[in-house]
């Protein structure tokens, strides 16, 4: 479990980026952190793996205070994929990049090879194995950065804007990968501005605004409430905007996912259609 107790953080410039955050994340959790540009999401993410230490309060990773253990020690448990993929990439080939962490953690060459192959496959990167990460497109680089952290299967995965540069199919892959991880008991925390991705993935949502947690709940409850969405500078998912217009026909308001929308409308339109068909 990762626990944040009354965490506040001030950058050396004096800027207070986090204010009294209380939060806990455990195996099997799938959490999305959302909020406006500058809300403090990346700052929060860097606290989860000890890259930043709280100015006040404390962060415990499996009971260990992040101020008392090294980042290298925490890296085995907590994998953080940066918002900007270029912060992570430095190897000559994609394969080496993804193998780097695994080798560092002392896995045997057989395990390294197996994990690298598996991860590249899962993220649709197999064809780039021998290419330089720097010659890839932005979306491809982002996936290499993801792969290099995912390969060592940390217990806690922190993904800062994982859908950047990804087309819809890549997002589907990513969603399946995440699903597989948390159903295996890993914790996945993703920071994202992609409301439609959240609407279709159904994580627990935490809204951060101006360094404070201002809302928590399921994706459909949080993303269909105007006051919450506005406060965190989000925009409601399309399904929620659509169903907001359809409540007078007895349809629920809190629909954010297109597949649920389809089922509800199939029932509703089926009802409407049946009498019409009988009444030429």
């Amino acid at each position, binding site marked *: 479990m990762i626990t944040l107790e009354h965490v506040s953080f001030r950058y050396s410039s004096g800027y207070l980026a986090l204010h009294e955050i209380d939060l806990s994340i455990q195996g099997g959790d799938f959490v999305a952190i959302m909020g406006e540009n*500058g809300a403090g999401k990346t700052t929060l993410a860097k606290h989860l793996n000890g890259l930043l230490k709280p100015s006040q309060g404390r962060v415990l990773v499996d009971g260990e205070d992040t101020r008392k253990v090294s980042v290298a020690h925490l890296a085995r448990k907590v994998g953080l994929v940066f918002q*900007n993929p270029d912060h992570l990439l430095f190897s000559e080939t994609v394969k080496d990049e993804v193998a780097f962490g695994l080798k560092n953690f002392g896995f045997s060459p057989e395990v390294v090879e197996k994990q690298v192959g598996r991860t590249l496959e899962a993220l649709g990167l197999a064809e780039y194995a021998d290419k330089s990460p720097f010659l890839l497109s932005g979306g491809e680089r982002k996936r290499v950065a993801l792969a290099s952290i995912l390969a060592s299967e940390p217990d806690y995965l922190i993904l800062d804007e994982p859908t950047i540069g990804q*087309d819809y199919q890549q997002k589907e892959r990513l969603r399946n990968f995440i699903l597989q991880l948390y159903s295996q008991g890993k914790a996945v925390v993703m920071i994202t*501005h992609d409301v439609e991705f959240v609407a279709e993935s159904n994580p627990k949502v935490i809204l951060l605004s101006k360094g404070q947690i201002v809302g928590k709940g399921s994706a459909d409850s949080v993303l269909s409430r105007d006051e919450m969405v506005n406060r965190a500078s*989000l925009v409601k998912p399309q399904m929620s905007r659509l169903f907001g217009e359809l409540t007078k026909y007895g349809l629920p308001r809190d629909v954010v996912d297109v597949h649920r929308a389809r089922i509800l409308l199939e029932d*509703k339109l089926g009802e409407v259609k049946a009498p019409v068909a009988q009444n030429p």
Partner: protein
Amino acid sequence: MSRAREIIVAKNLGFNYAGAKKPAIQGVNLSISEDEFILLTGPSGCGKTSLCRCLNGLIPNFYQGEWTGELMVDGLDVTTQPTSELSRRVGYVFQNPENQLFALTVEKDIAFGPENLGFSRDEIRERVDVAMKITGTSALKELAPYELSGGQQQRVALAGVLAMKPSVIVLDEPTSFLDPHTAEEVMRAADDLRRELGLTIVVVEHRLDLVARYAERIVVMDGGKIVADGNLGQVLDEQFDMLEGLGVGVPRVSLLWSMLRRDGLVSGKVPTHVEDAASALSGMMSD
């Protein structure tokens, strides 16, 4: 009505990065008029960024490789013009904003372009102020780029481009770093510039819903080629399955409609906007 001037004309354009197995773009024919708002989309790695790099001369001036075909931008042949000429006409907000910021403060960064063009102090002041206002970065002006969040960097990069007053603005996946509300504002600001100053806007984006309100035209690429080009609503309606198959992030209302249409529950054109879908469905349910 007189037809607007063509500002970008590509004829059979292709580029193969040195050492790459296949060309990043090939056989691209494209003609874009002044004051168009274009959405450029397609699967990850299909060549969108490479095409944009051609527009401001980064390709072929800074990237090694094999160039084929012709490209004219604002009347200039990209292969023979110095990049300094092109970069004042084509403002490019990179996919990764951090690579674009290098001055000590936000304000200096935004002023950098106009200073290089040799404008008067007053003119520079004015341009920087306007650009900061449009992008909501005034409050950040004393900060260093590394002190900014990802989205704040993206806005500053855009401000720097606006201060150059280019005739074409290329935004390469701008919304991936922006919060949804700001993304909406940036798109609206781009559209205002288009209407007021006649700028041409090219936005690369995977999520069509974010741009659909502004972009009348969509250009879809796959494997380095253009596979669809036309009115956004029409392409969505007529080539929906192709777009979905490519992994284009079609608006969720369009997807919903196409699924219901397949079920035989609705008929007619695939809607692009929530309001269109809402009124069509309301109409059916209140019968």
